[in-house]
């Protein structure tokens, strides 16, 4: 499903952040991406939705080289992905329902279909009864669940999570990870960046380890 072939990314101010990264992620797999902060986890994740482009190498997503797609095609690629952020990135002036509905609104779903899917997604993350609340009225764990509902509502083929539990306490973090595991059990492919090794060790999943821009484990 996702394949990195000798991918390198260099920034003019901080030098080479990723060098010759090679790995492959199979459909239905759940993998962790670890490493110290600054090891290049976030950069690697940014290459997949083309927030950044690599300087060298090739990235194949479902067989297509996404490092070379045009700017106009980027939105359509992103619609096949579910992005989850450390800081949730919710819109504070919209209700939980409207936040989760955003990807469907963008993709042009009908109102009925949108409502049905949003409620299904909120049900999965256990927030069905809070659909009319605003994000700031929710706890951190609940806000991240809204973020997760938004990432799964359009049934993406790959979910990318960048430090999804970075701002949460251990109990809530474990709950979020369990949620990811549940998705994986029904066939969702996930790539989760996290530096929380204790949490990762609880799951029997492949772990990709980055060290100073090089993939040293799991590739």
């Amino acid at each position: 499903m996702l394949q990195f072939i000798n991918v390198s990314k260099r920034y003019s101010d901080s030098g080479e952040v990723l060098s010759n990264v090679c790995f492959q992620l199979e459909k239905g797999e759940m993998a962790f991406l670890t490493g110290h902060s600054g090891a290049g986890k976030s950069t690697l994740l940014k290459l997949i939705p083309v927030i950044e482009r690599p300087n060298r190498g090739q990235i194949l997503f479902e067989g297509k080289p996404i490092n070379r797609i045009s700017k106009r095609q980027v939105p359509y690629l992103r619609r096949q992905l579910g992005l989850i952020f450390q800081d949730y990135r919710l819109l504070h002036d919209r209700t939980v329902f409207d936040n989760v509905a955003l990807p469907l609104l963008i993709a042009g779903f009908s109102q009925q279909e949108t409502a049905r899917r949003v409620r299904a997604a909120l049900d999965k993350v256990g927030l069905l009864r809070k659909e009319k609340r605003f994000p700031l009225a929710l706890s951190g764990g609940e806000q991240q669940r809204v973020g997760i509902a938004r990432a799964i509502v359009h049934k993406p083929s790959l979910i990318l999570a960048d430090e999804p539990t970075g701002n949460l306490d251990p109990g809530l973090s474990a709950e979020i990870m369990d949620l990811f595991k549940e998705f994986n059990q029904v066939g969702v492919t996930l790539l989760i960046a996290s530096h929380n090794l204790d949490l990762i060790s609880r799951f029997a999943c492949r772990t990709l380890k980055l060290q100073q821009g090089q993939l040293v484990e799991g590739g």
Partner: protein
Amino acid sequence: MTVLVIAIALTIPASFHVFIKNAQQASSTLEATNQISLFLKPELTNEAGGKVAETLNKHPQIAVAELVTKEAGLQQLKSYSGFGDALQALDFNPLPAVVGIKPKDSLTRPDEVEKLLGELRALPETDFVQLDTEWMHKLHAILTIAQRSVVVFSVLLSLGVLFIVGNTIRLELQNRREEIVVAKLIGATDRFIRRPFLYAGFWYGFLGGTLAWLLVSFFLLFLRGPSRHLAELYGSPYALSFLSLSETELLIGASVLLGIIGAWIVVSYHLRELDPT
């Protein structure tokens, strides 16, 4: 606020245009009352004057030629000028007989009028000829200049409207920065993001243009009374004309177009810097 500024910016050239249009129409209705006064030589009698008027009545370019006798002239002067008592003191009538000439309506071109004047001057009975409407031609020239300046004003103030809409949209973009970044991250196309701003541009333009139309109409209503009075003083049936349907369409249409274009430019320009990184 934006709507009001747009309305004011558009009201200025629009009302200026209406003002000139009315002045032109007014002057052309007044021109129909073009009057030539042919002053006969003082030694000529009223009878000789009557014969001149009779001949001139047959002239193809003259509608009416009417003799004002020496006595009638004196009478008019007494009643209009307020010199009544002073004139009483005169022991003879110093006024010549005058033939008042009204050219045919078809005679509007200045060179044709000039030709007729030449013919009248050449008559042996003529002392001198006076055209009462020369100032009208000067007014016409001034109005043409004014009309050109309306075009310049319109272009400048249209640019102003473009900037006002652009600036308002830019602020709105900044307010919704986070929302746009998130929308882009989850697959919104530029077209999707641009659309609501173009709608906003449309409404700013539409409401601004409509308000400008209302302002111009109020302005004209305000002037209607005095202008009717003025027209009466000139003995003209002239009535103030408002913006025509096509002018209204042009005003509101141009305003809408400016709103959309202003929004388009700003959104397209700023969308590039709102790419998520």
